[in-house]
């Protein structure tokens, strides 16, 4: 990029980037600012750029007067279960497709690839009927089961397992190791980085998933937090500090994960979109 560097000096790009970045992220600051303000601070013209006085009353109010704690638990349980089960079953499947030669191997992989063509949103009508006939509407099962479909994870694991040196599994097999042992003692530890990247991205996706939880859960206390906070408005009318306090609470886990694992998230996004 040396030639481009000559046309515009680096420090100008740096300054412009930081200014644009701060403007872009301003709504996040604004949400935080309002969530820490009094209702009366939100009707000022010009607007108050700092919460004065800074209060966590809205947060306390939301925690005490809504079922947000229950929504949190629902979100944590469903997201963790989805991530763990998805990684486990896709890893097993990818190992078989990558390492075991058996008739039908290629056809099964083609069928999994074909699954990419199916958009998830167009399946909600029959999925709802299916779970309704099993009495799983408004349950954890109904919430979790359809979110376990993740053919992309199989494809990614298969790519990584395909690159493992064949000598490794050969040597282990000679020592009498079973396929399960090879997978969990050799392949998994050697692909831990990609597993973490996948786990974090899957967790963020599942935590943020809106459409399916919105369809399958109607009981307010059983909602996940992204769906639950849309009910906060009907709880006490329009009150921006309280709504934004619930919004801040809803985004804390994924925001913290991102800030800690920024690189892993970037890696996970690039891998799952097929760019690396």
């Amino acid at each position, binding site marked *: 990029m*040396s*030639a481009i560097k000559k046309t515009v000096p680096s420090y100008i790009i740096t300054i412009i980037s930081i200014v644009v970045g701060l403007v872009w992220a301003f709504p*996040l600051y*604004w949400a935080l600012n309002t969530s820490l303000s009094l209702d009366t601070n939100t009707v000022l013209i010009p607007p108050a750029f700092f919460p004065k006085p800074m209060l966590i009353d809205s947060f306390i109010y939301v925690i005490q007067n809504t079922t947000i704690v229950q929504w949190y638990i629902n979100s944590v349980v469903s997201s963790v279960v989805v991530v763990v089960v998805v990684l*486990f079953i896709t890893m097993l499947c990818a190992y078989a497709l990558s390492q*075991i030669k058996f008739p039908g191997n290629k056809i099964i992989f083609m069928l999994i690839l074909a699954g990419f063509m199916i958009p998830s949103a167009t399946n909600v009508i029959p*999925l709802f009927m299916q779970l309704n006939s099993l009495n799983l509407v408004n349950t954890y099962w109904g919430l979790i089961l359809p979110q376990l479909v993740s053919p992309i994870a199989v494809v990614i694991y298969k790519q990584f397992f395909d690159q493992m040196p064949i000598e490794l599994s050969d040597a282990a097999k000679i020592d009498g190791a079973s396929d399960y042992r090879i997978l969990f003692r050799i392949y998994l530890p050697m692909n831990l980085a990609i597993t973490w990247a996948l786990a974090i991205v899957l967790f963020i996706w599942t935590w943020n998933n809106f459409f399916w939880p919105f369809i399958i859960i109607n009981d307010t206390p059983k909602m996940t937090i992204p769906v639950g906070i849309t009910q906060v408005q009907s709880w006490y009318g329009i009150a921006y500090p309280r709504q934004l306090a619930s919004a801040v609470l809803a*985004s804390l886990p994924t925001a913290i994960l991102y800030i800690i694992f920024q690189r892993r998230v970037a890696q996970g996004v690039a891998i799952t979109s097929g760019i690396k």
Partner: protein
Amino acid sequence: MTPVATKIAVSPVARKNIRKQWLIAFTLIAPFAVVYLTFLIYPTIRVFMLSFTNADIAGVGKFIGLQNYSRLLQDPNFWSSLWHTIYFMILCVVPNTAVGLLFALMLVRLKKTRGLVQALFFLPYILPVSVVTVIWIWMFDSNYGIINFILNTKFQWFQDEFLAMPAVSFVTIWWTVGFNMLLFLAGLENIPSEYYEAASLDGVKNGFQLFRYITWPLLWPVTSLVLLLQILAQWQIFNQVYLLTNGGPANKTRVVLQYMYVEGFQTGHGGYAATISMALFILILLTSIFQVRFLRVRNDQ
């Protein structure tokens, strides 16, 4: 046991043990296959079959042939929702791609501040959609919202027939551009720096020319991927429209998936909702085929 000895011993056994291999593979694949068949393949077949019935939302109904499809083709609500979806795409896809590319081009130039600036651009993407919409309902509030304060206006952005869809698109770009930016960033880093050095030796000094003749063509596979992923996602747009405008004012922003939701879950026409799903499914399939035939061809040139 020496390796040589085992190899001789194993190979005839292995032939006899094909069934055992199959059994191991089967048990490894089974858990994923059960989930995949039950919650992806079966519903896909069922949505097709339902589209020929007058089922309610419990799935109970009779076969009525092509009636749903002929109704769909004459249904002004369907066509207007389809237009709203396409209108949303027109407002969203190209700007979202352009801004993502611009941010990525800025980021590759940064050194120490890169992590920070990247986080500023990317943070909105990791928020749940309902958080994004609460933030922007407040930003766009007609009386005390900061946007109207800055513009010195009193627009009711999400209730206005002409402003609603552009405002929803704007919010979508703000929310998702970080994703496009990351893909472009990965693409830019894959362009070998020798290409730029060679070009500058050939007398191409101007940054715009370098972009035009090197960056843009080499980045095209990424650009086409970014475009495709957005179009595929936005055929299925629902959440932010539902939360910001609820399809209003007067259904002027109601998109296809919301129409399916209304038909299926609010008025209980499961069969007809399945037909709307099929229409969406076909549109998404055609988009993928179009991408393979058109965008890939440009890539080869």
